[in-house]
């Protein structure tokens, strides 16, 4: 994974609100992993970053993932590194968690559980929305 570093004043201080929306479970498709890779690269650009997890996307944050039998890399520990990249706003749909019988204790990182209405408020504030 390559990182490109830019000068502090490269963007004339433009800071936009970037949102990464995750709706798919990990491993069945590559979207969860590759979405996380964008977040990590994007973190170097000093923008205002949030992540949203809804529908099956909430499974990306589930504790105790064991992928040995599939031979696919278990990348869930990487979510714990986000804090070090100053990516701290992780919004998780409460409805999606309830539908799947999950609670905050089941998740690998601290998150903010939000209602659908709060989630839509947050979405409306964003300048750039990535949906993977």
């Amino acid at each position, binding site marked *: 994974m390559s990182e490109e570093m830019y000068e502090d004043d490269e963007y004339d201080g433009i800071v936009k609100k970037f949102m990464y929306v995750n709706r798919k479970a990990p491993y069945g498709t590559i979207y969860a992993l590759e979405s996380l890779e964008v977040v990590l690269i994007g973190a170097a650009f000093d*923008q205002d970053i949030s992540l949203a997890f809804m529908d099956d996307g909430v499974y990306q944050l589930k504790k105790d993932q064991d992928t040995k039998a599939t031979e696919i890399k278990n990348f869930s520990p990487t979510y714990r590194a986000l804090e070090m990249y100053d990516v701290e706003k992780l919004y998780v749909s409460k409805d999606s968690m309830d539908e799947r019988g999950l609670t905050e204790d089941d998740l690998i990182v601290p998150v903010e559980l939000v209602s659908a209405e709060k989630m839509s408020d947050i979405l409306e504030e964003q300048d750039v929305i990535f949906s993977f």
Partner: protein
Amino acid sequence: MKFAILVNEGPYTHQAADTAYHFVKAAIDKGHEIYRIFFYHSGVNNGTRFTSPPQDDRDLVQNWSRLAEEHNVDLDICVAAAQRRGIIDKDEAERHGKDCHNLAPGFRISGLGQLIEGGIQSDRMMVFGD
């Protein structure tokens, strides 16, 4: 308006690449600017020149190459996603010891930074995917 475009799916399997292409053409026709088109996930497969689609159907790869040529649009392919899926240019082929390269005209291998920069510099980011 300045648009940045993200194409997340490859040609034919999903309609996403078609929708993105038609959107870009419509935007250009209406006088908007396309700041960059970035290809990620399987979208990188839009950049292989080895496709031979049936002659009575559209040639998506050629459409992209023509778009780049006629309207000077940036077609950027994420290097990491491309390495996973086997889309390589001459430099990448040499670097990784591959016996040939397959990048279609108009495309260039690039980095995710270009996607983020597209988001920062454009007015709107449009995502076409699964």
